[in-house]
């Protein structure tokens, strides 16, 4: 509901419309709470980055985009309002009534907030990375792999994604060099083995990318050996970066308890350190990050939040009767 600068009240506001937020939206709306989901990007979150989800029980195989659209449809069918591509400018979590302001001046109030902003791929943050994004640097092998047919490329990273994507990129590239900062990989043994057994894949260990070099297009990377401190230029046609994940919690700094990795600290009911504020999904401090775990967290957060809300409502009603 667009309000053109006037404040709007809801029973619950969910920040983030990935699987965790959409599930919370479904449960809250079914519990007859007026619920608004505010989502910064495309509804579905990281799910839409997934070509095929084959491990969501009850669905043999589905694209992340389709699964996201079904979840959104379900939430809306129960009366949940969903707004995508919004930018949150300010957030106040103190007191009984919390408020969320958007950059267009709209403000929303609710006694319950569920935080489910998920996470995103980590970027290297070195010179040239922004300039060559889409001009030689990619974060998606399935999207851009075929631009590098018969070319020599670099994959940065040493986890499961990096090694699995390095193998999948050998379908296109003539040579794949994996550059990793440590002397060992943080991946499952089978992924390491598969990469090591692939003759198109080469490894440069204990080395980091210091910068990207080129004019109109990427010509290569400056590498820095972490042990010797020596640098050298490495010519390459493309670089794919898979170096892990960061939670989207920058906007929550000093507003809620975060751990040293920026993840939201929650209790067993997905409750945070602030009364009426719950959190769910990839942005919370936990070990396993999957659609199923996000959906589970969203369910718990919504059920606990709903109980909190109805208790709050009963207390308020009782107070009104006494007055």
């Amino acid at each position, binding site marked *: 509901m667009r309000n053109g600068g006037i404040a709007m009240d809801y029973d619950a506001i969910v920040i983030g419309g990935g699987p965790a937020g959409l599930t919370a939206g479904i449960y809250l709306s079914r519990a007859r709470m007026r619920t608004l989901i505010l989502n910064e*990007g*495309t*509804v579905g979150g990281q799910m*839409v*980055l*997934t*070509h095929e989800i084959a491990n969501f029980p009850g669905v043999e195989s589905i*694209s*992340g*985009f389709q699964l996201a659209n079904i979840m959104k449809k379900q939430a809306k069918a129960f009366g949940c309002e969903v707004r*995508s*591509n919004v*930018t949150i400018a300010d957030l106040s979590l103190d007191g009984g009534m919390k408020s969320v302001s958007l950059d267009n001046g709209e403000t929303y109030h609710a006694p319950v907030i569920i935080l489910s902003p998920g996470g995103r791929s980590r970027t290297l943050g070195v010179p040239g990375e922004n300039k060559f*994004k*889409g*001009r*030689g*640097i*990619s*974060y*998606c092998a*399935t*999207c*851009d792999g075929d*631009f*590098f047919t018969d070319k020599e490329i670099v994959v940065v990273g040493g986890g499961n994604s990096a090694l699995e994507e390095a193998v999948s990129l050998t379908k296109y590239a003539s040579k794949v060099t994996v550059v990793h900062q440590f002397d060992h990989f943080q991946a499952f043994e089978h992924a390491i083995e598969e990469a090591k057994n692939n003759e198109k894949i080469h490894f440069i260990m204990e080395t980091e990318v210091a910068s990207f070099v080129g004019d*109109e*297009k990427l010509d290569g990377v400056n590498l820095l050996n972490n042990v010797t401190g020596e640098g050298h230029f490495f010519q390459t046609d*493309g670089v794919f970066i898979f170096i892990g994940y960061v939670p989207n919690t920058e906007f929550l700094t000093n507003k809620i308890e975060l751990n040293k990795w920026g993840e939201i600290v929650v209790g067993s009911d997905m409750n945070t350190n602030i009364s009426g504020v719950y959190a769910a999904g990839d942005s919370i401090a936990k070990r396993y990050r999957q659609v199923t775990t996000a959906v589970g967290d969203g369910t718990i957060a919504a059920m606990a939040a709903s109980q909190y809300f109805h208790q709050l409502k009963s207390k308020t009603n009782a107070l009104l009767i006494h007055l």
Partner: protein
Amino acid sequence: MLYTNLKHIESAADHAKVIGDNENVMICCGRMGPMCIPVYGVMEELEDEFKHVRFFDMEFDNPESHVIRNAPECRGFMGLPFTVYYKNGKIVKATTSIQNMTQVKTILEKEFGAPVNA
């Protein structure tokens, strides 16, 4: 087939007609992939707001999309989608790879002007 809610351009002839008949046009040429879907989402969202701009998609793997793939402004692009902005039939801006709402809005406002009743 791109299953978006945008209008689709299916052929080079369609493309020529669209950019010939409309002053301000944005076309996103991509696949149903993780870098492209967010851009379609942003365009769907902006369609209501930027009524003076026409929004379309075109399938990257359709051979007819050579009109975008081979445009000089897209030379060196190696990331999907290729998003192209036309004013009076001429390309005024082209971007490669994923773009967010702010980035797209900034280009629309710069090249085509802010929405009239914004």
